[in-house]
Protein backbone atom coordinates (compact mmCIF):
# COMPACT_ATOMS: atom_id res chain seq x y z
CA UNK A 1 0.00 0.00 0.00
CA UNK A 2 2.30 2.67 1.23
CA UNK A 3 5.42 2.39 -0.89
CA UNK A 4 7.49 4.30 1.64
CA UNK A 5 6.75 1.74 4.33
CA UNK A 6 10.01 -0.19 4.21
CA UNK A 7 11.84 3.13 4.35
CA UNK A 8 9.97 4.63 7.22
CA UNK A 9 11.38 2.48 10.00
CA UNK A 10 14.86 3.23 8.72
CA UNK A 11 14.36 7.00 8.84
CA UNK A 12 12.79 6.69 12.27
CA UNK A 13 15.72 4.59 13.40
CA UNK A 14 18.12 7.13 11.98
CA UNK A 15 16.36 9.96 13.77
CA UNK A 16 16.25 8.10 17.03
CA UNK A 17 19.93 7.37 16.89
CA UNK A 18 20.95 10.74 15.54
CA UNK A 19 22.93 11.74 18.63
CA UNK A 20 24.68 8.40 18.84
CA UNK A 21 25.59 8.61 15.18
CA UNK A 22 26.89 12.10 15.61
CA UNK A 23 29.01 10.94 18.51
CA UNK A 24 30.42 8.06 16.49
CA UNK A 25 31.23 10.38 13.64
CA UNK A 26 33.01 12.71 16.01
CA UNK A 27 35.01 9.80 17.43
CA UNK A 28 35.93 8.64 13.96
CA UNK A 29 37.08 12.13 13.06
CA UNK A 30 39.21 12.52 16.18
CA UNK A 31 40.66 9.07 15.60
CA UNK A 32 41.39 9.69 11.93
CA UNK A 33 43.11 12.97 12.68
CA UNK A 34 45.73 11.25 14.80
CA UNK A 35 48.44 9.74 12.65
CA UNK A 36 49.58 7.37 15.36
CA UNK A 37 46.08 6.00 15.93
CA UNK A 38 45.68 5.34 12.22
CA UNK A 39 49.08 3.68 12.08
CA UNK A 40 48.03 1.48 14.99
CA UNK A 41 44.77 0.59 13.29
CA UNK A 42 46.61 -0.21 10.06
CA UNK A 43 49.14 -2.43 11.83
CA UNK A 44 46.43 -4.29 13.74
CA UNK A 45 44.34 -4.70 10.60
CA UNK A 46 47.35 -6.04 8.72
CA UNK A 47 48.09 -8.44 11.55
CA UNK A 48 44.50 -9.71 11.68
CA UNK A 49 44.49 -10.12 7.92
CA UNK A 50 47.72 -12.12 8.05
CA UNK A 51 46.30 -14.32 10.78
CA UNK A 52 43.14 -14.87 8.73
CA UNK A 53 44.57 -15.58 5.30
CA UNK A 54 48.13 -16.58 6.28
CA UNK A 55 47.86 -20.27 5.48
CA UNK A 56 46.50 -19.49 2.00
CA UNK A 57 49.10 -16.98 0.90
CA UNK A 58 52.36 -18.47 2.16
CA UNK A 59 54.63 -19.77 -0.57
CA UNK A 60 55.70 -22.98 1.19
CA UNK A 61 52.83 -24.09 3.49
CA UNK A 62 54.48 -27.47 4.15
CA UNK A 63 57.50 -25.73 5.74
CA UNK A 64 55.73 -25.15 9.05
CA UNK A 65 55.08 -28.84 9.59
CA UNK A 66 58.62 -29.90 10.32
CA UNK A 67 59.70 -30.85 6.81
CA UNK A 68 63.37 -30.96 5.89
CA UNK A 69 65.07 -29.61 2.75
CA UNK A 70 68.74 -29.82 3.58
CA UNK A 71 69.67 -28.80 0.04
CA UNK A 72 68.54 -25.24 0.69
CA UNK A 73 69.36 -24.70 4.35
CA UNK A 74 70.33 -21.29 5.75
CA UNK A 75 69.94 -19.40 2.50
CA UNK A 76 70.09 -15.62 2.65
CA UNK A 77 66.96 -13.60 1.85
CA UNK A 78 66.28 -13.71 -1.88
CA UNK A 79 63.41 -13.44 -4.33
CA UNK A 80 62.51 -17.09 -3.68
CA UNK A 81 62.86 -16.87 0.10
CA UNK A 82 62.11 -13.32 1.16
CA UNK A 83 63.29 -13.82 4.73
CA UNK A 84 65.80 -16.57 3.92
CA UNK A 85 65.63 -20.17 5.14
CA UNK A 86 66.37 -21.86 8.46
CA UNK A 87 68.76 -24.67 9.40
CA UNK A 88 66.67 -27.39 7.77
CA UNK A 89 65.85 -25.34 4.69
CA UNK A 90 62.39 -24.18 5.69
CA UNK A 91 61.20 -20.81 4.46
CA UNK A 92 61.41 -18.25 7.29
CA UNK A 93 58.83 -15.99 5.61
CA UNK A 94 56.29 -18.83 5.65
CA UNK A 95 56.85 -19.52 9.31
CA UNK A 96 56.69 -15.85 10.28
CA UNK A 97 53.39 -15.37 8.46
CA UNK A 98 51.90 -18.50 10.02
CA UNK A 99 53.15 -17.25 13.38
CA UNK A 100 50.63 -14.41 13.21
CA UNK A 101 47.80 -16.89 13.75
CA UNK A 102 49.55 -18.49 16.73
CA UNK A 103 50.18 -15.08 18.28
CA UNK A 104 46.64 -13.91 17.66
CA UNK A 105 45.25 -17.02 19.34
CA UNK A 106 47.59 -16.66 22.30
CA UNK A 107 46.83 -12.97 22.73
CA UNK A 108 43.08 -13.43 22.42
CA UNK A 109 42.87 -16.32 24.85
CA UNK A 110 45.03 -14.70 27.51
CA UNK A 111 43.22 -11.37 27.33
CA UNK A 112 39.80 -13.00 27.23
CA UNK A 113 40.41 -15.34 30.16
CA UNK A 114 41.96 -12.51 32.16
CA UNK A 115 38.98 -10.25 31.49
CA UNK A 116 36.47 -13.01 32.22
CA UNK A 117 38.06 -13.67 35.60
CA UNK A 118 38.99 -10.11 36.43
CA UNK A 119 35.89 -8.14 35.47
CA UNK A 120 33.36 -10.13 37.59
CA UNK A 121 35.72 -10.15 40.54
CA UNK A 122 36.27 -6.42 40.16
CA UNK A 123 32.54 -5.71 40.08
CA UNK A 124 31.94 -7.90 43.12
CA UNK A 125 34.79 -6.30 45.05
CA UNK A 126 33.73 -2.80 44.10
CA UNK A 127 29.98 -3.15 44.48
CA UNK A 128 29.64 -5.46 47.46
CA UNK A 129 32.78 -4.44 49.33
CA UNK A 130 32.87 -5.95 52.79
CA UNK A 131 34.86 -9.02 53.68
CA UNK A 132 34.44 -10.55 50.22
CA UNK A 133 35.62 -7.40 48.49
CA UNK A 134 38.51 -7.02 50.89
CA UNK A 135 39.61 -10.62 50.30
CA UNK A 136 39.45 -10.23 46.54
CA UNK A 137 41.53 -7.08 46.65
CA UNK A 138 44.11 -8.64 48.96
CA UNK A 139 44.61 -11.57 46.62
CA UNK A 140 44.76 -9.18 43.66
CA UNK A 141 47.43 -7.05 45.32
CA UNK A 142 49.33 -10.18 46.13
CA UNK A 143 49.45 -11.21 42.48
CA UNK A 144 50.45 -7.68 41.50
CA UNK A 145 53.31 -7.73 43.99
CA UNK A 146 55.31 -10.17 41.89
CA UNK A 147 56.27 -9.10 38.36
CA UNK A 148 54.03 -11.00 35.94
CA UNK A 149 56.78 -12.60 33.93
CA UNK A 150 58.44 -14.03 37.04
CA UNK A 151 55.18 -15.45 38.31
CA UNK A 152 54.42 -16.90 34.90
CA UNK A 153 57.87 -18.47 34.81
CA UNK A 154 57.23 -20.07 38.19
CA UNK A 155 53.85 -21.42 37.09
CA UNK A 156 55.14 -22.75 33.77
CA UNK A 157 58.07 -24.20 35.69
CA UNK A 158 55.56 -26.09 37.82
CA UNK A 159 53.28 -27.18 34.97
CA UNK A 160 56.01 -27.93 32.46
CA UNK A 161 56.91 -26.14 29.21
CA UNK A 162 54.51 -25.84 26.29
CA UNK A 163 52.29 -23.30 24.62
CA UNK A 164 49.11 -24.36 26.44
CA UNK A 165 50.79 -24.16 29.84
CA UNK A 166 52.30 -20.82 28.89
CA UNK A 167 48.81 -19.53 28.10
CA UNK A 168 47.45 -20.89 31.37
CA UNK A 169 50.28 -19.28 33.31
CA UNK A 170 49.92 -15.91 31.61
CA UNK A 171 46.13 -15.92 32.05
CA UNK A 172 46.65 -16.65 35.73
CA UNK A 173 48.92 -13.65 36.16
CA UNK A 174 46.94 -11.33 33.88
CA UNK A 175 43.53 -11.04 35.58
CA UNK A 176 44.52 -8.87 38.59
CA UNK A 177 44.90 -5.82 36.35
CA UNK A 178 41.24 -6.08 35.39
CA UNK A 179 40.12 -6.45 39.00
CA UNK A 180 41.97 -3.27 39.91
CA UNK A 181 40.56 -1.35 36.97
CA UNK A 182 36.94 -2.47 37.36
CA UNK A 183 36.91 -2.28 41.14
CA UNK A 184 38.08 1.34 41.07
CA UNK A 185 35.56 2.27 38.41
CA UNK A 186 32.70 0.45 40.18
CA UNK A 187 33.53 2.11 43.45
CA UNK A 188 33.35 5.52 41.80
CA UNK A 189 30.12 4.69 39.96
CA UNK A 190 28.41 3.25 43.02
CA UNK A 191 28.05 6.68 44.60
CA UNK A 192 26.93 8.39 41.38
CA UNK A 193 23.48 9.95 41.47
CA UNK A 194 22.00 7.73 38.77
CA UNK A 195 23.02 4.58 40.64
CA UNK A 196 21.68 5.99 43.90
CA UNK A 197 18.44 6.78 42.11
CA UNK A 198 18.18 3.29 40.68
CA UNK A 199 18.74 1.85 44.12
CA UNK A 200 16.15 4.20 45.61
CA UNK A 201 13.41 3.01 43.23
CA UNK A 202 14.16 -0.55 44.23
CA UNK A 203 16.18 -1.79 41.28
CA UNK A 204 17.79 -5.16 42.01
CA UNK A 205 21.53 -5.46 42.49
CA UNK A 206 22.03 -7.56 39.40
CA UNK A 207 20.13 -5.13 37.25
CA UNK A 208 22.09 -2.19 38.61
CA UNK A 209 25.34 -3.98 37.86
CA UNK A 210 24.37 -5.01 34.35
CA UNK A 211 22.45 -1.91 33.29
CA UNK A 212 24.20 0.91 35.11
CA UNK A 213 27.66 -0.16 36.13
CA UNK A 214 29.08 -2.51 33.51
CA UNK A 215 28.20 -0.37 30.47
CA UNK A 216 30.04 2.50 32.09
CA UNK A 217 33.09 0.34 32.66
CA UNK A 218 33.18 -0.67 29.03
CA UNK A 219 35.42 2.11 27.71
CA UNK A 220 38.37 1.56 30.04
CA UNK A 221 38.03 -2.20 29.60
CA UNK A 222 38.13 -1.82 25.81
CA UNK A 223 41.23 0.33 26.03
CA UNK A 224 42.90 -2.11 28.37
CA UNK A 225 42.11 -5.17 26.25
CA UNK A 226 43.61 -3.50 23.20
CA UNK A 227 46.82 -2.73 25.09
CA UNK A 228 46.83 -6.18 26.66
CA UNK A 229 46.55 -7.98 23.35
CA UNK A 230 49.94 -6.59 22.43
CA UNK A 231 51.47 -7.12 25.83
CA UNK A 232 50.16 -10.69 26.08
CA UNK A 233 51.60 -11.52 22.69
CA UNK A 234 54.92 -10.05 23.85
CA UNK A 235 54.83 -12.01 27.11
CA UNK A 236 54.00 -15.28 25.35
CA UNK A 237 56.83 -14.68 22.90
CA UNK A 238 59.13 -14.03 25.85
CA UNK A 239 58.25 -17.39 27.36
CA UNK A 240 58.74 -18.94 23.94
CA UNK A 241 62.17 -17.33 23.73
CA UNK A 242 63.22 -18.72 27.11
CA UNK A 243 62.18 -22.15 25.88
CA UNK A 244 59.20 -22.59 28.17
CA UNK A 245 56.51 -21.55 25.69
CA UNK A 246 55.70 -22.92 22.28
CA UNK A 247 57.97 -25.75 21.19
CA UNK A 248 59.21 -26.22 17.63
CA UNK A 249 57.99 -26.87 15.00
CA UNK A 250 55.11 -24.60 16.10
CA UNK A 251 55.80 -21.39 14.17
CA UNK A 252 55.82 -19.11 17.22
CA UNK A 253 57.82 -15.89 16.94
CA UNK A 254 59.55 -16.01 20.31
CA UNK A 255 60.59 -19.64 19.90
CA UNK A 256 61.84 -18.88 16.39
CA UNK A 257 64.06 -16.07 17.68
CA UNK A 258 65.44 -18.35 20.35
CA UNK A 259 66.16 -21.02 17.76
CA UNK A 260 67.67 -18.58 15.32
CA UNK A 261 69.89 -17.19 18.04
CA UNK A 262 72.19 -20.19 17.63
CA UNK A 263 72.82 -19.10 14.05
CA UNK A 264 73.86 -15.52 14.76
CA UNK A 265 75.62 -13.55 13.44
CA UNK A 266 76.08 -15.14 10.00
CA UNK A 267 72.48 -16.26 9.56
CA UNK A 268 70.91 -13.16 11.11
CA UNK A 269 67.63 -13.29 9.18
CA UNK A 270 66.42 -16.27 11.15
CA UNK A 271 66.06 -14.20 14.36
CA UNK A 272 65.65 -10.75 12.91
CA UNK A 273 62.37 -11.13 11.05
CA UNK A 274 60.23 -12.81 13.73
CA UNK A 275 61.34 -10.10 16.17
CA UNK A 276 60.40 -7.39 13.73
CA UNK A 277 56.92 -8.87 13.46
CA UNK A 278 56.51 -9.02 17.24
CA UNK A 279 57.56 -5.41 17.42
CA UNK A 280 55.14 -4.24 14.74
CA UNK A 281 52.24 -6.21 16.19
CA UNK A 282 52.74 -4.98 19.74
CA UNK A 283 53.31 -1.44 18.46
CA UNK A 284 50.03 -1.66 16.52
CA UNK A 285 47.98 -2.75 19.52
CA UNK A 286 49.60 -0.12 21.75
CA UNK A 287 48.94 2.71 19.32
CA UNK A 288 45.39 1.51 18.76
CA UNK A 289 44.84 1.37 22.51
CA UNK A 290 46.23 4.90 22.85
CA UNK A 291 43.94 6.13 20.10
CA UNK A 292 40.92 4.45 21.66
CA UNK A 293 41.75 5.97 25.01
CA UNK A 294 41.92 9.43 23.51
CA UNK A 295 38.34 9.16 22.27
CA UNK A 296 36.71 6.88 24.86
CA UNK A 297 38.39 7.81 28.07
CA UNK A 298 40.15 11.14 27.64
CA UNK A 299 40.44 11.80 31.36
CA UNK A 300 42.70 8.87 32.12
CA UNK A 301 45.46 9.70 29.66
CA UNK A 302 48.92 9.14 30.95
Amino acid at each position, binding site marked *: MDRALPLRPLTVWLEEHESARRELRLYARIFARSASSMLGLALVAAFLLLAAVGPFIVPYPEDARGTVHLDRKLEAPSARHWFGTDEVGNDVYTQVILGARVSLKVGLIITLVAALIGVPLGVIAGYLGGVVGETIMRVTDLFLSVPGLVLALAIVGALGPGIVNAMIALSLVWWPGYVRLVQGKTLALRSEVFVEAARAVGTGRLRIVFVHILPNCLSPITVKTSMDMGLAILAAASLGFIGLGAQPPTPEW*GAMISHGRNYLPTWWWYSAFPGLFIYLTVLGFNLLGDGLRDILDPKSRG
Partner: protein
Amino acid sequence: MLFGLLALTFVISHLVPGDPARLAAGPDANAAMVETIRKEYGLDQPLPIQFQRYVRGILTGHFGRSLRTREDVLTDLVRYFPNTLELVGGAMLVAVALGVPLGILSAVYRNTWVDHVTRVVSVSGVAVPAFWLGLMLQLAIALHWGLLPLGGRLGLMTTPPPSITHLLFVDTLLRGQWGSFRDAVAHAVLPVVTLCFPALASIMRVNRAEMIETLKQDYIVNARAQGIPDWRVVCRYALKNAMIPTLTMIGLRYGWMLGSTILVESVFDWPGIGLYAVNSALSSDFQPVMGVTLLIGLNFMVANLLVDLAYGWLDPRVRQAAT
Protein backbone atom coordinates in the same frame (compact mmCIF):
# COMPACT_ATOMS: atom_id res chain seq x y z
CA MET B 1 51.98 -9.16 52.58
CA LEU B 2 55.07 -11.29 53.00
CA PHE B 3 52.88 -14.01 54.41
CA GLY B 4 50.65 -13.78 51.34
CA LEU B 5 53.68 -14.04 49.08
CA LEU B 6 54.72 -17.21 50.87
CA ALA B 7 51.22 -18.61 50.47
CA LEU B 8 51.34 -17.85 46.75
CA THR B 9 54.66 -19.62 46.18
CA PHE B 10 53.44 -22.51 48.31
CA VAL B 11 50.33 -22.91 46.16
CA ILE B 12 52.36 -22.73 42.96
CA SER B 13 54.78 -25.35 44.16
CA HIS B 14 51.81 -27.62 44.75
CA LEU B 15 50.64 -27.18 41.18
CA VAL B 16 53.29 -29.66 40.06
CA PRO B 17 51.46 -32.48 38.38
CA GLY B 18 52.26 -35.90 39.75
CA ASP B 19 53.61 -37.06 43.06
CA PRO B 20 56.52 -34.93 44.30
CA ALA B 21 57.82 -37.75 46.48
CA ARG B 22 58.01 -40.10 43.52
CA LEU B 23 59.68 -37.37 41.49
CA ALA B 24 62.30 -36.77 44.15
CA ALA B 25 62.91 -40.49 44.60
CA GLY B 26 63.75 -40.99 40.93
CA PRO B 27 62.41 -43.44 38.37
CA ASP B 28 63.98 -46.56 39.86
CA ALA B 29 62.65 -46.14 43.38
CA ASN B 30 60.33 -48.79 44.77
CA ALA B 31 57.23 -48.05 46.83
CA ALA B 32 59.05 -48.28 50.17
CA MET B 33 61.66 -45.73 49.11
CA VAL B 34 58.99 -43.32 47.91
CA GLU B 35 57.26 -43.73 51.26
CA THR B 36 60.47 -42.96 53.15
CA ILE B 37 61.01 -39.82 51.13
CA ARG B 38 57.40 -38.79 51.64
CA LYS B 39 57.91 -39.09 55.41
CA GLU B 40 61.27 -37.37 55.32
CA TYR B 41 59.99 -34.30 53.45
CA GLY B 42 56.78 -34.24 55.46
CA LEU B 43 54.69 -34.78 52.35
CA ASP B 44 52.39 -37.16 54.24
CA GLN B 45 51.27 -34.31 56.50
CA PRO B 46 48.09 -32.31 55.84
CA LEU B 47 48.58 -29.15 53.77
CA PRO B 48 48.26 -26.57 56.59
CA ILE B 49 51.04 -28.32 58.50
CA GLN B 50 53.16 -28.49 55.37
CA PHE B 51 52.58 -24.78 54.89
CA GLN B 52 53.59 -24.05 58.45
CA ARG B 53 56.81 -25.97 57.96
CA TYR B 54 57.41 -24.19 54.68
CA VAL B 55 57.01 -20.73 56.23
CA ARG B 56 59.22 -21.62 59.16
CA GLY B 57 61.82 -22.95 56.74
CA ILE B 58 61.88 -19.82 54.59
CA LEU B 59 62.04 -17.51 57.59
CA THR B 60 65.09 -19.37 58.88
CA GLY B 61 66.72 -19.23 55.46
CA HIS B 62 65.94 -22.74 54.21
CA PHE B 63 65.02 -22.26 50.59
CA GLY B 64 65.67 -25.87 49.72
CA ARG B 65 68.40 -27.34 47.59
CA SER B 66 68.98 -26.93 43.89
CA LEU B 67 69.08 -30.25 42.05
CA ARG B 68 71.11 -28.72 39.26
CA THR B 69 73.89 -26.83 41.05
CA ARG B 70 73.77 -29.15 44.09
CA GLU B 71 73.97 -26.06 46.28
CA ASP B 72 71.69 -24.61 48.87
CA VAL B 73 69.34 -22.23 47.06
CA LEU B 74 70.15 -19.47 49.53
CA THR B 75 73.87 -19.79 48.73
CA ASP B 76 73.09 -19.52 45.03
CA LEU B 77 70.86 -16.52 45.54
CA VAL B 78 73.52 -14.75 47.57
CA ARG B 79 75.99 -15.43 44.79
CA TYR B 80 73.80 -14.32 41.88
CA PHE B 81 71.63 -11.59 43.31
CA PRO B 82 74.34 -8.87 43.54
CA ASN B 83 74.91 -9.22 39.79
CA THR B 84 71.23 -8.70 39.10
CA LEU B 85 71.09 -5.79 41.51
CA GLU B 86 73.93 -4.07 39.69
CA LEU B 87 72.32 -4.65 36.32
CA VAL B 88 68.90 -3.39 37.41
CA GLY B 89 70.40 -0.53 39.39
CA GLY B 90 72.47 0.59 36.43
CA ALA B 91 69.56 0.33 34.05
CA MET B 92 67.27 2.24 36.41
CA LEU B 93 69.88 4.94 36.85
CA VAL B 94 70.19 5.40 33.10
CA ALA B 95 66.41 5.25 32.60
CA VAL B 96 65.75 7.97 35.19
CA ALA B 97 68.77 10.09 34.24
CA LEU B 98 67.68 10.16 30.59
CA GLY B 99 63.94 9.66 30.89
CA VAL B 100 63.16 12.58 33.18
CA PRO B 101 65.12 15.26 31.28
CA LEU B 102 63.85 13.98 27.93
CA GLY B 103 60.31 14.06 29.28
CA ILE B 104 60.84 17.67 30.36
CA LEU B 105 62.34 18.65 27.01
CA SER B 106 59.53 16.95 25.18
CA ALA B 107 56.93 18.82 27.26
CA VAL B 108 58.62 22.20 27.03
CA TYR B 109 59.27 21.93 23.29
CA ARG B 110 55.92 20.33 22.63
CA ASN B 111 55.11 19.49 18.99
CA THR B 112 58.59 20.32 17.78
CA TRP B 113 61.02 17.76 16.35
CA VAL B 114 62.40 17.08 19.86
CA ASP B 115 58.94 16.04 20.96
CA HIS B 116 58.33 13.90 17.89
CA VAL B 117 61.62 12.04 18.23
CA THR B 118 61.11 11.31 21.92
CA ARG B 119 57.56 10.14 21.25
CA VAL B 120 58.68 7.72 18.57
CA VAL B 121 61.27 6.40 21.02
CA SER B 122 58.69 6.10 23.77
CA VAL B 123 56.12 4.14 21.77
CA SER B 124 58.81 1.88 20.34
CA GLY B 125 60.38 1.28 23.71
CA VAL B 126 57.34 -0.41 25.15
CA ALA B 127 56.61 -2.48 22.07
CA VAL B 128 60.03 -3.84 21.19
CA PRO B 129 60.74 -7.31 22.60
CA ALA B 130 63.65 -6.87 25.03
CA PHE B 131 65.25 -10.18 24.13
CA TRP B 132 65.18 -9.35 20.45
CA LEU B 133 66.57 -5.87 20.99
CA GLY B 134 69.37 -7.45 23.01
CA LEU B 135 70.16 -9.93 20.25
CA MET B 136 70.16 -7.24 17.59
CA LEU B 137 72.47 -5.04 19.69
CA GLN B 138 74.78 -8.01 20.12
CA LEU B 139 74.64 -8.64 16.41
CA ALA B 140 75.49 -5.08 15.41
CA ILE B 141 77.72 -3.76 18.15
CA ALA B 142 79.45 -6.82 19.57
CA LEU B 143 79.65 -9.13 16.57
CA HIS B 144 79.67 -6.86 13.54
CA TRP B 145 81.73 -3.94 14.82
CA GLY B 146 83.36 -5.68 17.75
CA LEU B 147 83.02 -2.59 19.91
CA LEU B 148 81.81 -4.26 23.09
CA PRO B 149 81.95 -7.76 24.53
CA LEU B 150 79.19 -10.19 23.65
CA GLY B 151 78.11 -11.25 27.09
CA GLY B 152 79.09 -12.34 30.57
CA ARG B 153 80.29 -10.12 33.38
CA LEU B 154 84.05 -10.06 32.87
CA GLY B 155 86.44 -11.08 30.14
CA LEU B 156 88.20 -14.45 30.51
CA MET B 157 91.53 -12.74 31.04
CA THR B 158 90.28 -10.42 33.77
CA THR B 159 90.73 -11.55 37.32
CA PRO B 160 87.79 -10.67 39.51
CA PRO B 161 88.72 -8.80 42.69
CA PRO B 162 88.54 -10.54 46.06
CA SER B 163 84.99 -9.93 47.10
CA ILE B 164 84.14 -7.27 49.70
CA THR B 165 80.56 -6.31 48.96
CA HIS B 166 79.79 -8.93 46.25
CA LEU B 167 79.06 -5.96 43.98
CA LEU B 168 81.58 -6.18 41.18
CA PHE B 169 81.68 -2.50 40.35
CA VAL B 170 82.13 -1.49 43.95
CA ASP B 171 84.71 -4.19 44.61
CA THR B 172 86.88 -3.33 41.62
CA LEU B 173 86.82 0.32 42.66
CA LEU B 174 87.57 -0.41 46.30
CA ARG B 175 90.49 -2.58 45.29
CA GLY B 176 91.65 0.04 42.84
CA GLN B 177 91.60 -2.39 39.90
CA TRP B 178 90.89 0.12 37.15
CA GLY B 179 91.40 -2.35 34.32
CA SER B 180 88.90 -4.76 35.76
CA PHE B 181 86.45 -1.96 36.41
CA ARG B 182 86.66 -0.83 32.82
CA ASP B 183 86.13 -4.40 31.66
CA ALA B 184 83.11 -4.74 33.91
CA VAL B 185 81.64 -1.52 32.56
CA ALA B 186 82.21 -2.64 28.98
CA HIS B 187 80.36 -5.86 29.70
CA ALA B 188 77.50 -4.01 31.33
CA VAL B 189 76.76 -1.49 28.58
CA LEU B 190 74.66 -3.63 26.25
CA PRO B 191 72.58 -5.39 28.94
CA VAL B 192 71.93 -2.08 30.68
CA VAL B 193 70.83 -0.43 27.46
CA THR B 194 68.55 -3.35 26.61
CA LEU B 195 66.98 -3.45 30.05
CA CYS B 196 66.56 0.29 30.44
CA PHE B 197 64.99 1.02 27.06
CA PRO B 198 61.35 0.12 27.91
CA ALA B 199 61.60 1.75 31.34
CA LEU B 200 63.17 4.83 29.81
CA ALA B 201 60.30 5.00 27.35
CA SER B 202 57.53 4.84 29.92
CA ILE B 203 59.23 7.16 32.40
CA MET B 204 59.69 9.69 29.62
CA ARG B 205 56.08 9.34 28.58
CA VAL B 206 54.61 9.83 32.04
CA ASN B 207 56.96 12.69 32.78
CA ARG B 208 56.04 14.42 29.54
CA ALA B 209 52.30 14.09 30.14
CA GLU B 210 52.60 15.33 33.73
CA MET B 211 54.86 18.23 32.82
CA ILE B 212 52.40 19.37 30.16
CA GLU B 213 49.60 19.32 32.73
CA THR B 214 51.65 21.04 35.41
CA LEU B 215 52.97 23.78 33.14
CA LYS B 216 49.36 24.85 32.51
CA GLN B 217 48.71 25.46 36.21
CA ASP B 218 48.10 28.92 37.58
CA TYR B 219 51.03 28.92 39.95
CA ILE B 220 53.41 28.32 37.06
CA VAL B 221 51.91 31.16 35.07
CA ASN B 222 52.21 33.30 38.18
CA ALA B 223 55.85 32.34 38.69
CA ARG B 224 56.65 33.17 35.09
CA ALA B 225 54.84 36.50 35.40
CA GLN B 226 57.01 37.36 38.37
CA GLY B 227 60.02 37.05 36.13
CA ILE B 228 61.51 33.94 37.65
CA PRO B 229 63.93 32.47 35.09
CA ASP B 230 62.38 29.92 32.77
CA TRP B 231 64.64 27.00 33.62
CA ARG B 232 64.01 27.60 37.30
CA VAL B 233 60.25 27.54 36.83
CA VAL B 234 60.47 24.32 34.82
CA CYS B 235 63.08 22.46 36.82
CA ARG B 236 62.08 23.46 40.32
CA TYR B 237 58.48 24.57 40.40
CA ALA B 238 56.94 22.30 37.81
CA LEU B 239 59.20 19.26 38.00
CA LYS B 240 58.55 18.67 41.66
CA ASN B 241 54.85 18.21 41.09
CA ALA B 242 55.26 16.27 37.90
CA MET B 243 57.62 13.86 39.64
CA ILE B 244 54.92 12.27 41.80
CA PRO B 245 53.25 10.20 39.05
CA THR B 246 56.68 9.68 37.52
CA LEU B 247 57.82 8.13 40.78
CA THR B 248 54.91 5.72 40.69
CA MET B 249 56.02 4.69 37.24
CA ILE B 250 59.61 4.28 38.42
CA GLY B 251 58.44 1.97 41.20
CA LEU B 252 56.35 -0.08 38.79
CA ARG B 253 59.16 -0.25 36.28
CA TYR B 254 61.60 -1.44 38.90
CA GLY B 255 59.49 -4.54 39.43
CA TRP B 256 59.09 -4.94 35.71
CA MET B 257 62.88 -4.71 35.23
CA LEU B 258 63.45 -7.40 37.83
CA GLY B 259 61.09 -9.58 35.81
CA SER B 260 62.80 -8.74 32.53
CA THR B 261 66.18 -9.78 33.87
CA ILE B 262 64.92 -13.28 33.04
CA LEU B 263 65.14 -12.34 29.37
CA VAL B 264 68.03 -9.91 29.32
CA GLU B 265 70.29 -12.10 31.45
CA SER B 266 69.55 -15.06 29.19
CA VAL B 267 70.55 -13.08 26.13
CA PHE B 268 73.75 -11.65 27.61
CA ASP B 269 74.69 -14.63 29.72
CA TRP B 270 74.71 -12.37 32.76
CA PRO B 271 75.19 -14.48 35.90
CA GLY B 272 72.23 -13.12 37.87
CA ILE B 273 69.09 -14.56 39.40
CA GLY B 274 67.14 -14.21 36.16
CA LEU B 275 69.45 -16.53 34.28
CA TYR B 276 69.55 -18.77 37.34
CA ALA B 277 65.74 -18.99 37.38
CA VAL B 278 65.54 -19.75 33.66
CA ASN B 279 68.18 -22.45 33.74
CA SER B 280 66.52 -24.01 36.78
CA ALA B 281 63.05 -23.89 35.23
CA LEU B 282 64.37 -25.47 32.04
CA SER B 283 65.81 -28.39 33.97
CA SER B 284 62.66 -28.77 36.11
CA ASP B 285 64.63 -27.75 39.17
CA PHE B 286 61.89 -26.20 41.19
CA GLN B 287 63.21 -24.85 44.48
CA PRO B 288 65.47 -22.20 42.88
CA VAL B 289 62.59 -20.84 40.80
CA MET B 290 60.52 -20.42 43.94
CA GLY B 291 63.46 -18.80 45.71
CA VAL B 292 63.91 -16.28 42.91
CA THR B 293 60.17 -15.56 42.83
CA LEU B 294 60.19 -14.85 46.55
CA LEU B 295 63.29 -12.71 46.34
CA ILE B 296 61.95 -10.63 43.47
CA GLY B 297 58.56 -10.24 45.15
CA LEU B 298 60.25 -9.08 48.32
CA ASN B 299 62.39 -6.65 46.39
CA PHE B 300 59.41 -5.19 44.64
CA MET B 301 57.65 -4.68 47.97
CA VAL B 302 60.65 -2.83 49.37
CA ALA B 303 60.78 -0.68 46.22
CA ASN B 304 57.13 0.25 46.60
CA LEU B 305 57.75 1.17 50.21
CA LEU B 306 60.61 3.44 49.13
CA VAL B 307 58.39 5.06 46.54
CA ASP B 308 55.78 5.73 49.23
CA LEU B 309 58.43 7.34 51.39
CA ALA B 310 59.61 9.44 48.47
CA TYR B 311 56.06 10.80 48.04
CA GLY B 312 56.32 12.25 51.51
CA TRP B 313 59.62 13.88 50.62
CA LEU B 314 58.19 15.44 47.45
CA ASP B 315 54.69 16.28 48.54
CA PRO B 316 54.12 18.22 51.77
CA ARG B 317 50.45 17.15 51.78
CA VAL B 318 51.47 13.51 52.15
CA ARG B 319 53.94 14.50 54.87
CA GLN B 320 51.25 16.38 56.78
CA ALA B 321 48.80 13.52 56.52
CA ALA B 322 51.36 11.13 57.93
CA THR B 323 52.25 13.13 61.04
